[in-house]
């Protein structure tokens, strides 16, 4: 356990030194604050709270941005260290391979969690200082958004680690990372939409669609945030979908967690057999 923490701490310090932590936190905070100020503008007449507006816009943005940051941070984690030669030395020490991989992952996931909580938390503070009274239910939704964002970041970090363990070349790992991002974040939904239109509802029923959405961590995250809370789904225009969705919030979270654990477990298994 101690070894894990030593390696994770080193990774965090690396992140602090090369300004990853600062840059990511600032970016998250800037975007979150901008969106929360913009979100505060149209309230009152529309009848939705500023928090709900912020949740909808912020979670939509998170789906694009957070996976990208997570993959950028993680694709080099294993293959880069092997390439530079630091891995050879590290593995000659009394550490197990799973400790190396998991320790590094904890460090990177920690950086993302820190940046997300702090950046989005700043937006929360800004919202709470506004004039509108905010209900506890809205705060719960906001906290759930931050928590699931951390999970989403961890899921894509885990996939970055898998890409990094899979190949022998940094360029290839970067290519896989970009492909993962494009695939899950952009192309998957387009493909799904195309499929729905082409199919015309003949074979693709709601059940199957649910499963297809769960097969993508980004969609799982979207489903969780836009349908999980009534006020949010009303505003997001997903209330109908929320009524249709038979997947409960805990299940969605469990699926997201599964998207963290499964790639990571596979990466550990591959890394243990890897000939350095």
């Amino acid at each position, binding site marked *: 356990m101690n070894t894990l923490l*030593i390696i994770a701490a080193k990774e965090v310090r*690396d992140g602090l*030194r090369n300004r990853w932590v600062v840059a990511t936190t600032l970016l998250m905070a800037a975007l979150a604050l901008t969106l929360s100020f913009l979100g505060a503008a149209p309230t009152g007449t529309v009848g939705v709270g500023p928090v709900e507006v912020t949740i909808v816009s912020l979670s939509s943005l998170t789906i694009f941005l957070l996976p990208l940051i997570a993959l950028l941070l993680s694709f080099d984690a294993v293959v880069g260290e092997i390439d530079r*030669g*630091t891995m*050879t030395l590290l593995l000659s020490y*009394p*550490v197990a391979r799973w400790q190396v991989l998991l320790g590094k992952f904890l460090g990177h996931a920690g950086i993302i969690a820190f940046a997300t909580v702090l950046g989005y938390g700043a937006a929360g503070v800004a919202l709470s200082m506004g004039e509108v009274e905010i209900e506890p239910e809205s705060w719960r939704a906001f906290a759930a958004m931050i928590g699931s964002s951390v999970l989403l970041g961890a899921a894509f970090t885990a996939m970055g680690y898998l890409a990094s363990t899979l190949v022998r070349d940094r360029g290839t790992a970067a290519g896989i990372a970009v492909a993962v991002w494009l695939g899950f974040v952009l192309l998957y939904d387009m493909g799904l939409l195309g499929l729905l239109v082409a199919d015309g509802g003949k074979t693709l029923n709601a059940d199957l669609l649910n499963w297809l959405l769960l097969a993508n961590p980004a969609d799982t995250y979207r489903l969780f945030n836009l349908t999980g809370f009534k006020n949010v789904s009303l505003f997001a225009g997903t209330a109908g979908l929320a009524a249709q969705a038979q997947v409960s919030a805990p299940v969605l979270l469990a699926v997201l967690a599964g998207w963290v654990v499964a790639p990571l477990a596979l990466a550990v298994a591959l890394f243990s057999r890897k*000939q*350095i």
Partner: protein
Amino acid sequence: MTDAPTIRVEGVSKQYGDAFAVREVDLTMAPGECVAMVGHNGAGKSSLIKLMLGLTTPTAGSVRVLGADPASAAASHIRRQVGFLPENVAFHPSMTGRETLDFYARLKGANRRDNDALFERVGLEPAAVKRRVGTYSKGMRQRLALAQALLGGPLVLFLDEPTTGLDPALRQSFYEIVRDLRDAGTTVLLCSHALTELEGQADRVVVMNRGRKVADGTLATLRGLAQLPVRIRLTMPDGNVVEMTCANDDKVETVRRIACEGPAVTDIEIVQPSLDEMYAHFLRREAAE
């Protein structure tokens, strides 16, 4: 400590695809022994070290370091007693020298209070220790690399091309450290292609070529095996230098004859075949087979 071998390599081969990096190598090393492994680039030296560190698993044969399989999951504890200085050592450039050594000491469970003594031993100045490794020269990186290899007082030490980039003065102090360790009972495996430098440092020399072990023995044994002629250089009273060669076994007899029956000479110089020449000889013999 008993004299049981600390390293036992038996019939080990390592294949990458069709290519053999190491082929049917046997090697045993005892505590307090300093073995020099020589061979040109790609001869399988680093591959053999990786096998002994458990970074790779052998295609055939078995490797035992301090009585355990280094690639097994239970090998963690034996790595506490193994020091390794890799070829082309790399550290995280954003960490300072002290942070780097602290990090490795923590991993090894070594006492970090000894780090200052280690820095002094390898000759890394306190001012340099506070600087980031990214600003280090090759020599300073090599000193830091040696310091991390010495963490926790290892029983087995693998040094892969340890003196590249070191100036002659540091090279001397480096070999002094190695001698001290060996005298304290550490098994030291030195890899190098700077052969002349290894003369007088190693108890035994292992010659590698294309993944095979071509020769193994003390310098004297290798000399006997190689049957290379000894050169005897005579300086005549008139200043002329005469050079003659003879077999190693006839050396004493020849010198005796020169001294007793030969002409008057002002100087006799006996030139033994150097490690370089012997190495070249073993490679030629290997190529002829």
